[in-house]
């Protein structure tokens, strides 16, 4: 078996994890695919060490996160400036225009997952990135603040707003779905 064939098997095992991490952090499938490609090209350079390593998954996840944050940092000053200018409301058009949750959310599980992924992608960078780092990468608030170069209170506020947006968005979509079903044909 050649190195390339072995690498193909290795990639099949990890491609969903790498792509998933990238798409959740970047919120853009095209950029995520570019990042995933760069990660695997880097992995191939160290494939001798990674092939049998039990920590290969962790290594890939770390490289993916770093590359995504580097990519976002290229636009960091621009989005941080606007995010702080609108510190009281990071995304009025998205967060505040949707209804507040009043009832339990009783969507079908697959539909709920799909909606959550969609909502994650639609969150503004300033909310999505710390939210993903906290809930998917299990980083503590302090580490997130350090890596994003933001204050601890801003990170906490952004994560909180992100959670609120997710909940409101799900509720909003549920109401939409109910409204569509109830509409006479």
């Amino acid at each position, binding site marked *: 078996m050649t190195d390339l064939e072995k690498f*193909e098997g290795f990639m099949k095992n990890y491609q969903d994890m790498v792509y*998933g991490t990238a798409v959740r952090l970047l919120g853009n499938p095209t950029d995520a695919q570019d990042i995933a490609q760069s990660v695997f090209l880097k992995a191939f350079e160290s494939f001798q060490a990674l092939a049998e390593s039990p920590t290969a998954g962790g290594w890939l996840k770390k490289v993916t996160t770093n590359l995504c944050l580097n990519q976002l940092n290229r636009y960091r000053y621009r989005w941080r400036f606007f995010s702080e200018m609108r510190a009281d409301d990071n995304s009025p058009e998205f967060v505040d225009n949707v209804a507040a949750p009043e009832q339990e959310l009783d969507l079908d599980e697959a539909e709920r997952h799909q909606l959550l992924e969609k909502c994650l992608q639609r969150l503004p960078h300033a909310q999505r990135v710390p939210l993903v780092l906290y809930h998917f990468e299990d980083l503590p608030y302090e580490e997130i603040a350090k890596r994003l170069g933001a204050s601890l209170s801003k990170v906490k506020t952004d994560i909180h707003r992100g*959670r609120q947006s997710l*909940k409101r968005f799900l509720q909003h979509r549920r109401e939409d779905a109910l409204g569509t079903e109830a509409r006479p044909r």
Partner: protein
Amino acid sequence: MPWAPKPGHVDDCPRVQSRFRVNNPDPDPNLEAWASAELKKLPPVPAPATLLPRVLQRLEARARRYWWLRVWWDWPLAAKVASLMLSIALAGSLGGGGLLVDERVAAYAGDITERFTPLAGLWDIATALGRAAVQVWAAVAQPVILTGLALGTVLYLLCVGLGTAVVRSIWKRI
């Protein structure tokens, strides 16, 4: 029973409540648990079918490249050793050549100096004028220009600061 402000109490004011929410961003402890439970349940996002062939194609193209088009680390060992020796030889010859060039340049400079000796008087005048200009600069122009520059910088920063403050306060009001 949790504390709740009485009607008309200052804490019942929407502005005060809004400020409380800003300073205490997580008043709903269930929200974190809810988000954590929901997000942990999400299945992995499947990678697009194009990712694997795309990466393999890049790797194959990289492997097909001539060795001298790859990064130096990937060159064959013999080529690496040869290139290193060649680089050392090149650097050595450039150094030795530099010494030869230095001698020729020095001789040529001597010739030029002799040819232009009659112009030495003009050079002396130019030097004297230059020194006078430096003294005038040090005595008069330097403090004026430096003060002007400092004042300009302070005013510029003041304008930027005021502008930012005004834009941010207006944005918050909108």
